């Protein structure tokens, strides 16, 4: 019976709204505008704080700060050699091969960022015209000429990186450990780079020149960003990474990390490095069970503890607490747009109060025929839900153009704001929620009017 009455009241609510189209349209128009503004604020908020890649909850971060010689000694006898450049420049150091010795099955990755030049190779015919006698030179004008002149953010990672941080690919797949060990020249590109250099959608399998070196595209990220990458909190708010390359490729490309942080180097040479008192390495590892965490702790203590080297092992929640994105104006903007939405709701309250007064006779008839107060109350909430729900849907007509013009006119980052099913769902829920909240008082007023007053019989 409850469902039957609900459907009946929904039908009556729709009729009531159609009976006064001007008032209904006014309410919808007001709520559409404020909901559209709210949605725009939400898009900014989600771009920065919204759900992005979901790291595995078993993620742990390891930080080691020690003298270079100590580090080398710690890895003595293993097949993993510390990367001298990486160690000097306070970058992550992958040594998952060490884990083979510790018998702890775990995924592991290091990551650092560098700025590289990217372009598509010139078409063969065009290259042959320029150099008829031989193969086309690795440099030269090709597609994406503007990109060629601007260094892009590239990230060096391991094969396990994508799975550990939940970075989904929309096409293709990450390279495997075997390909990484074989030093395959492969690359995963971002959605943005794919859209930019391969608008026809033919990026997968194509060749990309990175600092002039050809790489085969094996995967394309499914989404933009994230604005605040969980694997590199220091990079929050800037341009997004457009390339993901196997970690060892930084040697082939002869690149240095973008943000070097010197601890106490004595000079740029390897000799200076080995004489440095302190270097810093960090990496990510996955420890899904308590047993693996205990074993890894034992492993670290055994490797570094004897040498009195401090090691920090943090789980994901501690990581997030330590590296939370800095507060930005985005949060304030979200608060502002939410306030505007509530303001629109107050206008809706006023209009619904007037509507309730105008239809008092109809409500009185229903009361006379035996409708309890709560049924009239719920019917008016249904009306409010229909009005605000319609406004929530129509608000995309406001948010969409605003997002379009923002992306075209404001170049704060290269990560666009965009309407997603997620943002649409939140906007719709918020608009309907505000509509229902603001309809409570008018619904109560109208449903508690004495039937005799409503019928004008007093």
């Amino acid at each position: 019976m409850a469902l039957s009455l609900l459907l009946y009241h929904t039908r009556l609510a729709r009729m009531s709204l159609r009976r006064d189209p001007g008032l209904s349209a006014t309410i919808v128009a007001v709520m559409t505008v404020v909901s559209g503004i709210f949605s725009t604020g939400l898009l900014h908020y989600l771009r920065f704080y919204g759900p992005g890649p979901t790291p595995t909850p078993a993620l742990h971060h390891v930080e080691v700060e020690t003298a270079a010689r100590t580090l080398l000694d710690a890895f003595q006898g293993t097949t993993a050699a510390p990367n001298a450049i990486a160690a000097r420049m306070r970058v992550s150091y992958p040594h998952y091969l060490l884990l083979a010795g510790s018998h702890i099955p775990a995924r592991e990755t290091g990551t650092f960022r560098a700025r590289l030049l990217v372009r598509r190779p010139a078409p063969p015919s065009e290259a042959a015209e320029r150099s008829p006698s031989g193969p086309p030179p690795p440099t030269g004008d090709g597609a994406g000429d503007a990109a060629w002149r601007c260094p892009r953010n590239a990230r060096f990672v391991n094969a396990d990186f994508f799975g550990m941080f939940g970075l989904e690919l929309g096409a293709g797949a990450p390279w495997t450990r075997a390909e990484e060990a074989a030093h395959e020249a492969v690359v995963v590109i971002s959605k943005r780079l794919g859209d930019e250099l391969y608008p026809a959608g033919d990026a997968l399998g194509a060749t990309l020149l990175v600092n002039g070196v050809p790489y085969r595209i094996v995967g394309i990220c499914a989404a933009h960003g994230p604005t605040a990458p969980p694997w590199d909190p220091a990079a929050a708010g800037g341009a997004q990474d457009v390339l993901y390359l196997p970690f060892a490729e930084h040697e082939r490309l002869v690149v240095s990390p973008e943000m070097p942080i010197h601890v106490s180097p004595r000079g740029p040479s390897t000799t200076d490095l080995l004489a440095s008192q302190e270097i810093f390495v960090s990496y990510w590892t996955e420890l899904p069970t308590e047993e693996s965490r205990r074993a890894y702790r034992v492993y670290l203590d055994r490797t570094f503890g004897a040498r009195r080297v401090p090691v920090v092992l943090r789980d994901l929640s501690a990581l997030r607490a330590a590296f939370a994105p800095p507060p930005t104006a985005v949060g304030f903007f979200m608060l502002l747009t939410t306030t505007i939405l509530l303001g629109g709701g107050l206008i809706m309250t006023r209009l619904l109060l007037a509507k309730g007064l105008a239809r008092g006779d109809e409500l009185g008839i229903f009361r006379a025929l035996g409708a309890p107060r709560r049924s009239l109350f719920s019917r008016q909430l249904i009306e409010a839900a229909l009005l605000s729900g319609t406004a929530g849907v129509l608000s995309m007509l406001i948010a969409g153009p605003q997002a379009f013009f923002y992306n075209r006119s404001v170049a704060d980052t290269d990560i666009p704001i965009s309407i997603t099913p997620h943002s649409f769902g939140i906007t719709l829920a918020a608009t309907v929620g505000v509509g229902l909240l603001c309809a409570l008082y008018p619904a109560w007023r109208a449903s508690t009017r004495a039937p005799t007053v409503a019928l004008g019989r007093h």
Partner: protein
Amino acid sequence: MATTSHPPDPSAPPASATPAMLDMRGVRKVYRAGLVETEALSGVTLSVSRGEFLAIMGPSGSGKTTFLSVAGLLDDFQEGEYVLDGENVRGLSDQRLSRLRNQKLGFIFQSFNLIPDLDVFDNVDVPLRYRGLPSAQRDRRIEETLAKLGLVARMRHLPGQLSGGQQQRVAIARALVGRPQLLLADEPTGNLDSASARQIMDLLARINVEEGMTIIMVTHDHEFAARAHRKLHILDGKLIDPRGGVRPGEAGGAPLGGAPGRAAGAG
């Protein structure tokens, strides 16, 4: 001493030993507007038997509409007791009062008060919606009621497409579809032409006789009031029996009630 006896009124329903349909004792209703108090009903005491057809007359502002509102549980009262079909309505929750209105009462208003956006069928359906009846049963009952009132051909018409008399018949159908035990009619012929008004009165009389429906009707029309079993006047919120001049509740005066055709002071 010779005694006289009056022959039984053939139009009156048989005297019943069952409790009265409506029993008010000392009901008082006051309207307050700021510091101003208006006593709309003043110690009304009335008993209406089952199957009785009662007409109430009075000038504007005498309290007859207020009486009907209180009787119909549309309005509360400050003093007195009101027992409807054996149930004391004082202090009942809104939920319970709504249920009583839905199940035991039927309303007929002067201005019909049909829902303009609902067609005839859906207007008559409204009270049944709050009964929780299955859809098939509701439809059957509505069709039966409309057939009884000759409205089947107008089933899908909107109220605006009907004449005044037809609209009032729809209102009567809506009042009857729930099979109430008490019908409250507030000047049911007030907005109708004479021919339609007579048709409506014939209909009400027929319902009263054939189905034993208890009817309380407020009217200005003496001709229509004469068709009732009993006629009362209301003046300044007090009920008066025009035959005996005795006011209910006065010392020495018997309260009005009992079987139709018997009133205080008759003799």
